[in-house]
């Protein structure tokens, strides 16, 4: 992998929750810029936990042990001195269940901007365009966001992240509740977006992982089993466990 192109560097990351549930065990992983890196594996493998560390959303939950290093370019992500607000603007997150805020479609986009003190009307349209939602909502921007369909809501969540012009977009099973057509739209958007962003995706199925991955990391019970370019990992996995999972023998 081209080291110069690295966006996120994870070294020896260890994480334990206070209730002892999901954890990460000594993860080292380099995530390249301008590509889709897929983190996949069975439930409880630590995929969401890893994503939440990358923009420090793990601050919101009880973590008893967090060791190792995470760098976003030169920024020490885990340092207590790091400005988490600025970090979260650089690293956006789309969640599994589309959560629109209880306000209008437009306000869902402008909320993050207003808080950041950004006044830029063009970003509303741009972000909705990039999330392939503009045509569907341009005449009803003042409607409550909950009146959108599930697929539209998830694209609105993507647009909300894009409006902040982040560098990295984290997506935690963003299509798990969507129908195949909406899923296709989201995946299309991601392919277009990787030109400008670094994308880390937890897919909702192995098929989606194989469809979208430029790079793929297979996680099992908190351990990184195998990490390789997607075309290699899915056609010629090196680890027996990866092969078994990819071929659907467990999970």
């Amino acid at each position, binding site marked *: 992998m081209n080291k110069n192109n690295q966006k996120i560097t994870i070294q020896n990351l260890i994480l334990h929750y206070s209730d002892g549930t999901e954890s990460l065990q000594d993860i080292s992983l380099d995530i390249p810029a301008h590509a889709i890196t897929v983190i996949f594996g069975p439930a409880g493998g630590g995929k969401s936990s890893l994503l939440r560390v990358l923009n420090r959303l793990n601050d*919101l939950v009880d973590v008893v042990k967090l060791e190792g290093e995470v760098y976003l370019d030169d920024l020490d992500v885990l340092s207590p001195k790091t400005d988490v*607000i600025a970090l*979260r603007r650089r690293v956006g997150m789309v969640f599994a269940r589309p*959560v629109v*805020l209880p306000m209008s479609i437009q306000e869902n986009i402008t909320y*993050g901007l207003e808080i950041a003190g950004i006044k830029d009307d063009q970003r509303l349209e741009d972000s909705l365009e990039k999330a392939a939602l503009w045509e569907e909502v341009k005449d009803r921007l003042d409607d409550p966001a*909950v009146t959108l369909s599930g697929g539209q809501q998830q694209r609105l969540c993507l647009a909300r992240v894009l409006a*902040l012009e982040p560098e990295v977009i984290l997506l935690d099973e963003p299509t798990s509740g969507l129908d195949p057509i909406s899923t296709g739209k989201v995946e299309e958007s991601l392919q277009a977006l990787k030109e400008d962003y670094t994308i880390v995706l937890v897919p909702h199925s192995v098929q989606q992982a194989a469809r979208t991955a430029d790079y793929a990391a297979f996680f099992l019970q908190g351990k990184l089993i195998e990490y390789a370019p997607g075309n290699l990992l899915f056609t010629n996995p090196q680890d027996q466990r990866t092969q078994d999972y990819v071929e659907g023998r467990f999970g």
Partner: protein
Amino acid sequence: MTDQKGTRVRYLKQRLGFRLLSSMAILTILPIIAVVIYIVIQGAPAISREFITGFPEDGMRAGGIWPAIVGTFYLTLGTAIFSVPLGIGAAIYLSEYAPQNRFTQMIRISIINLAGIPSVVYGLFGLGLFVLFLNFGTSILAGSLTLAIMTLPVIISTAEEALRAVPQAFRTVSISVGATKWQTIRRIVLPEALPGILTGVILGLERAAGETAPILFTVAAFFLPRLPNSPLDATMALPYHLFVISTQVPGMPIKIQYGTALVLLTFVLSMNIIATVIRSRARASRQW
């Protein structure tokens, strides 16, 4: 054949159970209807312009109850000024910030116990602390503070419940787009919880407006045929006035007693109705 019979018996049992439960539900609304009808029938003849806006005359046996209405209004307002900001603030702390530890546990236990203290004890406490020790005298200030302490647990617990009902996902999303915790609370959580908080506030104040014991020693005047013109004045108040004219004044015309009760009931029930309307409107517009 036996199967069919078994089914019939079960249906019969179901119908019987339903009848029993629905008649119990009806029984619970009977007392309130009975009270309202009785008070209205007895009190309505007393209601007139002079009764509402006039001052008591002839040892309170005639005239109106305007000073008591104004007094109760001021007391309710004063109670709101002291208890609402404090109660909502405490609720925000408990719901959004407080860690799960012994200190938080202690606060919660205190609130529960505060709610269980008999109101006459609050009255005595108010007399000791506000009237005598802090030297506020028998005044609207002392009475409002006493009622505020009594109202706090209601406001805190309903407000905390309303805040907790706001989905956690809203907070996570707000934080994830770069909001601070306080921005999240102010812009997302509080607006969502506001109808629930308001309901609690109104229910708490309504209780304060109708209480007699806490104001007995702290503010209420037996007979004061003028309006208070400072928070340090004593005042008449509807519940205490009702107590006085029902038990302390011989030869009192019945209709004045029930007229006063009707005014107090209207005051309290209309606050109740406002709370109900706010709550049902919020429920109707809630889309998550």
